[in-house]
């Protein structure tokens, strides 16, 4: 079923303490798609990923992964169901070396990449495999953060701003990696600030505004609706 929904999110709400930051976001991601969430700072993109992953304080609504309701599951169970998360702050463990970081997430399903395949994709990481996580450059950290979740066999990857603060050449590399992952049949939900980068990799774009989905733009309409888009994203 190439067009089946891998992820179906309905009326997703999330709270940090008393303040609600998601107000009923609804969207879906189909098998093998790369979908981005675009929006201004504070619109709720990162929170959407965190809410899917179950690492917000409180959430409600529905998150269906592979036909299975996940809203009541704890984040470790969600991960084991087959969703992998690469956080915005990258979350490289300073007390672990590169290889330990790489081997940390447990394998949750067959079909993940092997360590040597990962090193082929990111040769830099192999060179630095014994370095402490704290000693890596920003680009290396980002590569490691993505590489880390490729081993697990998860079929849906949630990537939070993988290009943030990186040199253009690294951004290009990340773009190639995402294409590569897509070619392998992985499904990717991507949070981006960089709309131009998003346009190069994604099939569809959701615009997030005030904790809700404001609009959806397919890749083919991206250029014709770019004015609308800058209205959404402009300050």
């Amino acid at each position, binding site marked *: 079923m190439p067009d089946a929904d891998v992820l179906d999110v309905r009326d997703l709400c999330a709270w940090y303490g008393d303040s609600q930051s998601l107000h009923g976001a609804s969207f879906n991601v189909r098998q093998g798609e790369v979908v981005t969430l675009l929006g201004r700072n504070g619109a709720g993109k990162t929170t959407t990923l965190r809410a899917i992953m179950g690492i917000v304080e409180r959430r409600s609504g529905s998150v269906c992964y592979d036909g299975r309701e996940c809203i009541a599951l704890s984040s470790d169970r969600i991960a*084991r169901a087959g969703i992998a998360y690469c956080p915005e702050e990258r979350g490289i463990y300073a*007390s672990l070396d590169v290889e330990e970081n790489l081997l940390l997430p447990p394998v949750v399903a067959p079909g993940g990449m092997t360590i040597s395949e990962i090193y082929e994709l990111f040769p830099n990481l192999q060179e630095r495999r014994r370095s402490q996580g704290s000693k890596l450059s920003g680009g290396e950290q980002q590569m490691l953060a993505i590489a880390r979740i490729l081993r697990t066999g998860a079929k849906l990857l949630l990537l939070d701003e993988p290009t943030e603060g990186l040199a253009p050449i690294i951004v290009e590399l990340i773009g190639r990696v995402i294409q590569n992952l897509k070619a392998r049949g992985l499904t990717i939900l991507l949070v981006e600030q960089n709309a131009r980068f998003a346009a190069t990799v994604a099939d569809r774009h959701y615009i997030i505004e005030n904790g809700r989905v404001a609009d959806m733009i397919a890749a083919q309409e991206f250029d014709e609706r770019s004015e609308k888009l800058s209205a959404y994203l402009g300050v």
Partner: protein
Amino acid sequence: MSAILDLLPPLPALFGQILIGLINGSFYAMLSLGLAVIFGLLNIVNFAHGAQYMLGGLCAYILLKYFGVGYWPALLIAPVVVGAFGVLLERLFLRPLYRLDHLYGMLLTFGVALVMEGLVRNQYGSTGNPYPEPPSLAGAWNLGFMYLPVYRAWVIIASLGVCLATWYVIERTRLGAYLRAATENPKLTRAFGINVPRMVMLTYGGGVALAALAGVMAAPIYQVTAQMGSEIIIVVFAVVVIGGMGSIIGAIVSGFVLGLVEGLTKVFYPEASTTVVFIIMAIVLLVRPAGLFGAATRTTAAGESHATAASGLRLSPPTVRNVTIALIATGVLAPWVVYPVFLMKVLCFALFACAFNLLLGYVGLLSFGHAAFYGGASYITAHAVKMWGFDPLLGILAGVLAAGILGLVFGWLAIRRQGIYFAMITLALAQMVYFSAVQAEFTHNDEGIQAVPRGHLLGLVDLGNALNMYYFVFAVFLLGFWLIHRIIDSPFGGVLKAVRENEPRAISLGYDTDHYKLVAFVLSALLSGMAGALDALVFQLASLTNVHWTMSGHAILMTILGGVGTLAGPIVGALIVAGMENYLATLGAWVTVIDGAIFIVCVMMFRRGIVGEAAVLLRKVRLKRKTEPVLAPSTKGATS
């Protein structure tokens, strides 16, 4: 011991003490290792660690006495049993506390330690229960320069092995990587599919099992007693502060080294052997506040930012005037109804608790060392009045001043660290004062300073008369209470509350918060000293009880039970605690058990304390009465 007269002690004595030092060091290392691992992942200081060490020894003792099970099986069974108990403790009691301030975890485990120690003392008494060395390790090797008992050699080697194995598991294995990852970023680690809560539970169980293992190994050397845990745990806290909590290898190395240093001190300067670790701790705090191995940023980040004990506990007290009037009326009339000596005890405790509350409730600093001020002042006052013939007022002044000086030193050292470190440091420093009191001449050790004359106030009023004494104590109490109230209400008090709520913000507003914390600490010490000085006159006695760490525990208990950060709370708490001590004294060790149980109940269910809960209840009732849906009257309006 006459060897000290020569500069060089005879070799056998030297090696003997080195051996004892290494043995002690083995236990310090094993215990501080467990503490460090638990602290890393759970972010709590496991105060029950000593009690769990004791349970390990006790378990071995029971296995041998009642089941005929010997040392070697006990080495396995005791850690499993006590570890399982730890798992249960984590699951039922600690887990609900994680979302709260870390100090609650410390208070809870303190309560658990009291309950366990009390229960064991009740059952087995406080004298030692001997445990034989395993026959296979009996005897000694003649090394030529000394005899090395086989069992002691085994303890050193085995504990070194256990420590290194633990280090290996944590630093070099997959499981250890999970542990380090969960220590550093539990949320993300969980989002990778690792069951972090289960790991936390098992880690706590593992750390506890390590303590129990040390307990079994200690049984043939030290005998099994109820208080063997509380005796060692405070030294271990100091070891941990010296080593720095973040480092596994640091815990091991500083454990062994400090044991050795302690042993050597026994040879060269035995008077200091009980305090040397605390002195080293003070020096390390001056030179490297993060500890010798404490470079790890993760622990400083995790442990240091949680200093606000009372935030969220703050409540608007009923109007100050009502409380004051009720207080004065009750105080004036009470001695006609209740035995005055008991009332005086309540007042001493109440002043002590109010002084403590000034620090915990209004600055958010949890001191575990206030016994030093209370007991220290009572010694100085007793000595000044009895030996130097001071007038009672002058005597009290001397005591208060002494407490203030101690407070200045303690505060100066302790405010370099925050949160649980602050608690451990004050505890260790107070223990140093305790050991000094044990050794000093003028304190007369176990007997204390007895038959302290109450004297004549200003040469006029005979304080030997119970009622006169009572009204004098009452007047001093009111003075102290009024002072505390003035401090809290002053602009200075406003800054203190700001420090409690958000220290970084207070700093960014330009306040030198360390300075404010130090002044508050000294004020609290002075007022605690005032209470202790009165105590010495009331009971005409200054004894070790007043400087013992249990007295610091009392201050915390009274404050928490009554209500942290409330004006009347500490008084209510003092009434209950003094009442329990007085009327339940016949129950012996059960009082400790009850104290501990109150800690547990308060931390788990009544974090606002009696007065705090009552105030909330009152507000709810008032709110219900009002028909129109008005929002809760703002706390701000009620406090000011």
